[in-house]
């Protein structure tokens, strides 16, 4: 699904943070081009 895609990660401090999503995305073969953890508070 994500193979050969470039991925922007918008994590959430109160949900799933950027680095945790990045660990997952790495396993899909996609390339991470930007990762951040937002704080919505």
């Amino acid at each position, binding site marked *: 699904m*994500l193979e050969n895609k470039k991925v922007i990660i918008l994590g959430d401090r109160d949900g799933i943070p950027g680095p945790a999503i990045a660990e997952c995305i790495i396993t*899909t073969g996609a390339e991470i081009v930007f990762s951040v953890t937002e704080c919505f508070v």
Partner: protein
Amino acid sequence: MDLENQRRVKEIAEKLGTENLVVVLGGAEAEASGLAAETVISGDPAYAGPLTGVQLGLEVYHIFELKSSVDAKVYEEQVSMMELVLDVDAIIAELNKIRSSAAAAITG
């Protein structure tokens, strides 16, 4: 989505093109996830940031929706705890709503 992140997303889309670009969200609740999705599809709904009026039309998913694409062990370690705490169904329903209304707007 905060203004700095809107600027970064816009920059990346301009540099790399939108065709193979996917946004993955980790939002804790449905409304904020929906707003972030709307921002990268049809532009900033708050008319405040660099993506105001910019229809990037990006593919966007919550990490919960990508469970079957991710290595099961890694997903278990990194995400599954939050599946127990957050309202997964509401988040996915909101994203489905945003995606279908965006698709309807684009196709007219």
